[in-house]
């Protein structure tokens, strides 16, 4: 009820975001129903121009571009979402724990995070992927681990400002246990910045996956993925064909939409009016 009520007052930008994200979700979930062909199916000649049979033409192997875009939504968005959630669970749990417990645990975690953050993230990811081998599971774990350090920093600093409040002191004196202290007392107050970070982090992860795929270390062919689709079809640009920009546009649109939603949520959570 409350969500519906607050949605009614949401600004048009947030609405735009919701609509776009919903469309992406529907496309991702019902991909096999929407796509006219199979994901890996070769259905025609290479680089067929846009026509009634192939709405966006075909790629270098003669696969339908539109079909691959649809499946790309499932793969790229799905993997990015899983990765971000994982990064958040790990980062937020340890960040809040470090802030509440403090002492040596905080030192241990924070210094470890410092070390991990000291290495440039893309290079670190490439390095780890080379060591552990390129598979989707490895990629998800590696990106999640590296991005969780950023989430940790944020969660810890936000929680640091909350644990000094009198109501946390009151809760401690009441004898509340650690899990409840973190989940019921601190987390609700740390939600706004964390949600905002989630939106941004999702975009970063999403771009990181696309970048890795573009470099050939991410999602492996023949799986459809927007990042690698840009690379595979990049040469078409020189012929004035905008097809390779379609997956790029799909990435950009989702990034913008997610940020609109996050902006609105942040605004609402901070109690700012209009």
């Amino acid at each position, binding site marked *: 009820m409350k969500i519906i009520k607050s949605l009614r007052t949401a600004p048009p930008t947030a609405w735009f975001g919701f609509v776009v994200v919903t469309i992406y979700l529907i496309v991702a979930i019902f991909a096999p129903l929407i796509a006219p062909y199979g994901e890996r199916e070769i259905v025609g000649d290479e680089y067929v121009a846009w026509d009634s049979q192939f709405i966006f033409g075909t790629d270098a192997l003669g696969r339908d571009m539109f079909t691959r875009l649809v499946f790309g939504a499932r793969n790229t968005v799905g993997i990015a979402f899983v990765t971000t959630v994982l990064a958040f669970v790990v980062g937020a749990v340890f960040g809040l724990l470090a802030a509440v417990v403090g002492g040596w645990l905080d030192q241990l975690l924070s210094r470890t995070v410092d070390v991990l953050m000291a290495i440039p993230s893309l290079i670190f990811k490439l390095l780890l992927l080379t060591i552990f081998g390129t598979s989707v599971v490895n990629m998800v774990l590696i990106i999640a681990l590296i991005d969780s350090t950023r989430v940790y920093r944020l969660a810890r600093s936000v929680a640091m400002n909350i644990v000094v*409040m*009198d*109501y946390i*002191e*009151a*809760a*401690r*004196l*009441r*004898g*509340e246990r650690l899990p409840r202290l973190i989940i*019921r*007392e601190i987390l*609700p*107050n740390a939600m706004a910045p964390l949600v905002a970070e989630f939106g941004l982090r999702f975009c970063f992860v999403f771009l990181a996956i696309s970048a890795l795929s573009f470099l050939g270390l991410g999602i492996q062919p023949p799986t459809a993925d927007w990042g690698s689709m840009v690379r595979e079809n990049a040469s078409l640009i020189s012929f004035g064909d905008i097809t390779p920009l379609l997956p790029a546009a799909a990435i950009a649109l989702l990034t913008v939409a997610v940020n609109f939603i996050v902006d609105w949520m942040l605004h609402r959570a901070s*109690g700012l*009016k*209009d």
Partner: protein
Amino acid sequence: MTGPQNLLEIKNLCIEGRSGTSWSNIVNGIDLTLERGEVIGLIGESGAGKSTIGLAAMGFARDGCRISDGTILFDGIDLRAASVSARRKLRGNRIAYVAQSAAASFNPAYKLIDQYCEGPVLHGSMERDKAESDAIELYRRMQLPSPDEIGFRYPHQVSGGQLQRAMTAMAMACRPDLIVFDEPTTALDVTTQIEVLSAIRDIVGQFNTAAIYITHDLAVVAQMADRIKVLLRGEEVEESDTKTMLKTPKEEYTKSLWAVRTYARPEHPLQSTQETPVLSVENVSASYGDLQVLFDASFDIHRRQTVAVVGESGSGKSTAARVISGLLPPETGTVKFEGERLPPEYKRRSKNQLRQIQMIYQMADTALNPKHRIRELIGRPAELYLGLRGKALEERVRELLSLIELEPDEYIDRMPSELSGGQKQRIGIARALAAEPQVIICDEVTSALDQLVAEGILKLLDQIQDKFGLAYMFITHDLATVRSIADEVVVMKEGRVVETGPKTKMFTPPHHPYTELLLSSVPEMDASWLDRLLESRANKNVEK
């Protein structure tokens, strides 16, 4: 433009504030005139529009406010019609503002003197080096310690009272015709307050500056103002010169403001000194890191008694509370509950031991989790300690809400942000009561509240004490509060207990010298009180 004309003339001032999308009146047709060199006091509860009027006198409205009607003439200049740049030229130069919290108003990244010089240099009235020597001169007149070098410190390196004086000196930098003082001493101790008050009064007198003095403390305004205007919800209640106002207030509301200071409850006599005190602090010393803040402190709290712990900030009152609650384990000494030694650290105390001692905090805003509903805020201790669930829990929460005089149906599902300051404090009380404790530690519970609201809280605490036989440890710096509710008084200074005893003994001479200083520093409802006090202190110094 000299002559008979008034310096400031405000007619029919109306200010609207925005709530959501609609505008509502927060100041309703206020008239105010001020001659050169005159000081007018604006008093009222919070929400009365005092500060808003003060700012409007500078032609300024806060974010979310707008001046909707009326005229503001400053020395013949219509501030509402004047251009932004014209107003900017006046502000800081001919009209200055002293905010309530100097600590929050100074930029922590710059030295005091840099901030002092900014105004005069910007307005082109002084060169930098001249402004600096002028600053030192004014610091001297404000009786700041070592005026030659204090300006070269950063705001965090000087005390609150000194900052407030430095701020007043800064307001004087351009020798303005009008200064707006917005509760300049509210955040200060009584003893520091005196220094700031006398410094402000001297300097305003010396330069013949007109001032608007905003406060909720009648006794303070009586010392400062030539005239007093009483405000209530954006409307004027009455205005007259200070002496008449103090002696013969006309309106009921003004009288009620005056009456608050006389609230007192009968003392609860100690049943027998042989009885084991419900809480006793024995030879406790404690420190934060290397800094020792509590030295060998001992006192007892008996059942049904209110022990007021008084002292200036930094005297160790709150530290004592932290030791009792187990937040700060003492280095030496013990805390006993009903004769039994409590583990020094709260983590080692049993649920039952934790339940027996509850806290009520000074700032109800930060003491209630803003994301919890009243139901959970009050219900949680009952659930945790007494194992109440479901219907029984709901019943208990409703019962507690009725006890603190808030309508259960209306309030049970509210968030703290939907409550007023006094209501929040009541919720804090209900939360403490929900645990069914023996001892409640009240840490400055009324100091952030208006006098009328504070009185309500004190009365409530009183009723609850009678009903449940509670013992209170009441930490405060306000001696008026002590006078109205305490049975026993513990006076603390620099981490040591300097005097303890029943209230009546404490308020009758002979006093410990420090108690004497505290007592004499409490402003009285008498316009000549500050003069007499300063005179008598000066005489004493001469004798010494």
